[in-house]
Structures are given as C-alpha cells and as structure tokens.
C-alpha cells in the first residue's frame, strides 16, 4: 500500500501546474532571450499542463501571447513581479499597473506592477494607472 501512496503522491506533484520562482541571473526570457537580471520586473505564464514560461518584461509576455496559437484559457496562472517587492510573483489579474517614461524596465515597456496601489510613485512618476485588461488592450493587439 505504502509504495502506491508514494507513487500517487509523486503523480500528483508531477501534474501540479504550480508557478516557479524566477531565477535571476540564470533564466532567459522566453520571448527576447535576454538573461533575467532586474528583480523589480518579470512575468510568468504557467499552462494547465504545468509548462512554465518566463519573461523579463510585460511586453515580452504579450509578444509571446501574440506569437503562439495557445489560447488564453490554457493558462493556469498569469503572474507578474511586484516592483516594490522584488522577486515576488503576484496574480496579474489582481495587480495594479503604472505606466510612465520614468520606469526603466528591461524591454522598455515602461510598466511596473504592484500588489497594492502606490499613490506616492504614481505622482512621482506622473504615471498612468492601468489594469490588466487595459494593458492587454494596449500591448495585446
């Protein structure tokens, strides 16, 4: 019985479509091939089958969206890095975004993501607040 439970356990682990942390300095962006470096930026897609795609900037994620025939329903997780909490992946759907020329993102999208609203940076950067849906419209088409 015990080996069976263990095997089942492995099987379940193997199937889980769980996000993976971005390994800065090691991982390459799936779209632009650059090595990830800036811990304030990044994005990740996890498909229902558990395949993980990593990106260094939000526009790379949208470029990947456009370039593949995988439909959006196939993604289990769409995650972005919180600008104010480096390396922390947060749910893109619920995140707050700021777009400004002051944001020096790796691929010049000029977009920073936040888990919570950040009014201080919004005024400092004279940034435009955006939601995920609005970003999709701007970059997705």
């Amino acid at each position, binding site marked *: 019985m015990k080996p069976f439970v263990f095997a089942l356990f492995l099987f379940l682990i193997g199937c889980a479509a769980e996000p993976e942390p971005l390994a800065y300095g090691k991982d390459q962006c799936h779209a632009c091939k650059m090595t990830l470096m800036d811990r304030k930026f990044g994005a990740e897609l996890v498909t229902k089958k558990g395949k993980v795609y990593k990106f260094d900037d939000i526009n790379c994620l949208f470029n990947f969206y456009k370039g593949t025939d995988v439909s959006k329903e196939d993604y289990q997780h769409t995650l972005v890095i919180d600008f104010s909490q480096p390396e922390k992946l947060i749910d893109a759907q619920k995140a707050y975004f700021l777009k400004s020329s002051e944001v*020096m993102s790796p691929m010049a999208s000029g977009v920073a993501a936040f888990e919570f609203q950040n009014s201080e940076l919004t005024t400092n950067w004279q940034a435009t607040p955006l939601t995920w849906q609005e970003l999709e419209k701007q970059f997705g088409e």
Partner: protein
Amino acid sequence: MKIIVFCSVLVFTLAYAEARTYRVSKQGKITTLKEAVALSDHGDTIIIEPGIYKEGNVIIEKSLTILGNGLPTMDGEHKYEIFTIHATNVTVSGIRFIDTGVANINDLAAIKILDSKGIKIQHNKFENTFFGIYLANTTSSLIEKNTLYSHGIAENQIGNGIHLWKCENITINKNNIKGHRDGIYFEFVTNSLITNNHSEGNVRYGLHFMFSHNDEYYNNTFLRNGAGVAVMYTKNVKMIGNTFDENWGSSAYGLLLKDIRDSEVTNNTFFKNTIGIHLEGVSRTNFTENTFTENGYAVRLQASSDDNVFNRNNFSANTFDMATNGSLVLNQINGNYWDKYQGYDLNKDGIGDVPFRPVNMYAMIVERIPAAILLWRSFFVLLIDRAEKAIPVVTPEDLKDSSPSMKPYDFAATSK
C-alpha cells in the same frame, strides 16, 4: 574697425584671464571638492591633489574641468552616488572612484551624467561601483581610457559598467571593463561609436545593445562574459573587427542577434563559444570575412531570419558549423571555407566542385531533442550522418554552399 577688433581681443583675453584654477588638497586652503565647485565659475579648472575624499554626492552644474593629480580617490562609502553632472562641457580626468552605494530603485553611479552635452570622461579608475559611468539624455560626449572593475558576484549587487540611455553622438574608446552586470549597455542610443574596448567577465553581457540605430562598434574584445554579447531590436549597425571569445554556458552566445535589419558583421573572430552567432529575426544583414573556430555551434540560424548573406567566412574545428530549426531557407551562403568539406576541385580554380551542406543531420535532431547530444560522436550517429549526406531527408535541401573555398581565407592579408 580696428577699435572693434582691439576691443574684442581685449574681451577675449579678459575672459581667458578670468578662467581660474582651484586646487583641492588635504593641506591646502580648499580641502573639499564641493567647496571648489561652489567657488568656481564656468570655464574654470579644479585640480584635486592626492588623498581620499569622502564628500558624499558632488553635484556639478557648471562647465568645469576637474583633473586628478596623482590619482586622488573619491570614496562613495557604500552609500552615495559620487558625481552627478548636469551641464555642458565638463571634463573629468585622472580620478579614482570607489564604493558607490547600491540601490535597487535608483541606479546609483560613480559618475551620472544627465541632460548634458560635450562631456569628457577620461583616464579614470572605477572600483566596486554599482553603475560606473551612467549617461542619460546626453549628446556629443567622449568616454575614453577608463578602467572599470567590479567584484561581479551577486548580480543584484552590481550595475552596468558604461550605461547609456537615450544618447546621441557618443564615442566610447579604449575602456577596460570587468565584472559588471553588462559591460557596456546601450538603449536608445544613436550615431555612436564603440571602439577598442575590452569587456571581460561581466555577469550578463559584455555589450548589450537595444533599440540603438546607426551605431558602429569595432576592434572590441568580449571575453568570458556570462552570456556573451546581445544586439537586439536595431537597424543599421556595423560590427567590425571584434573578438568574441570563450563565452561558455547553456545560454551563452558569442553574439546574440535578435530583430536586426540592414546591418553588417565583418572581420570578427568567434573562438570557443557555445554558440558563435545566434540569429533570430535577422534580415538583410551581411556576414563576411568572419572567423569561426572551436565553437559548439558556429552559426545558429533560426528560420525567422531572411535575406542574409554569408560570404567568405572561415569555419574550422566547430562541433556544428550551422544549425537551423526550419526547412525553408531564405538566406544566401556562398564562397565560405569549411574545414569539414570533403569535396574536390578538378579544374583547380580554388572552388569546390560539389556543394557543401553545413547543416549536420544530427544538429537538426539536437535542435528538436536537446538531450540527444549525448549520443553525438557515437558510431551509430556517424552511420546515419553518412546516409543523410548521400540522400538528404532531415536537413534542408537548399541550405548549401555551392561554391565552397578549398583553402581558408587569409583575412589579415586582405584587411590590412
């Protein structure tokens, strides 16, 4: 008329006489650079005598010439940005900058130059600075003969050596950069030159080039960088006479080209890289007189590239000369020397009589199943490789050099 001339000469001489020189020294009247900057006026010269100066952040908003005598040290005490320049015609020369602060939100630099023009940064030394020289919105400037060295261990603790953002007409010449994140970083930089630099052991790229049109870089050496050199999203760039050596690693390239148009890659040397050149989305670019030696892959040509020309290159002792991921070939490969060529030359014109197919059958398989590299050089692989050469099935039919050179080219003789 004479009086006017006389007057103007007088005014000029007076103006020159006005340009004063201030000396900063530990023993002298002026003991800090900040004091000298406050006292000085446009066109003045400040000479810093030897010593270690801990002054935090020095802001320069006047046209000054700041010279170090006997390499004085400006210490950032792991806290500060050292110089912030916002002016026209500023020269900084002969100073050693050490230990800037490290910050994740602000890119602290040893010398940061913002919205400026006519800046010269020469003969300085930078040790353990987060960013070394940082230019934003700056034009017509010269960065020359500086040495930049950073420990380069944790990649979030180091910034770029020479970092340019939205600049124009900049010359970067004879600098020596080691152990930074990217040795030289270009983003939105146009009409600029990168010449005779040595960029070694940087954590990510030796040179990183994005959205930077009409630039040229020649005679640079890029050695043992984490991922080699990346040139991306750019048109009209000339890469001439550079050396790309020993960039080893699972995702390391001698030269990574992505989305490049109308460019030129000439007379470069690619030695011992995992991948010599990786091309993705590259169009209308000429690759001539390059030497590829002892690379894993000399050229990896993704099917998204078209209208490129490979002519008169030397390929020798590479594991794979060329690899591709598609069967459609829209590039011209002609008149190169391949050491793996086994054809003959009956009419003795120096050109092989049968075409050479640089894409090895097994390279195609490895492209699809990377783990298959384990079987490389086994007897079985050799057999199917021979079979494939006789009757091509897997390798693209049109990817061939119809006039391979029988002898390697001697570029040293032709270029100089």
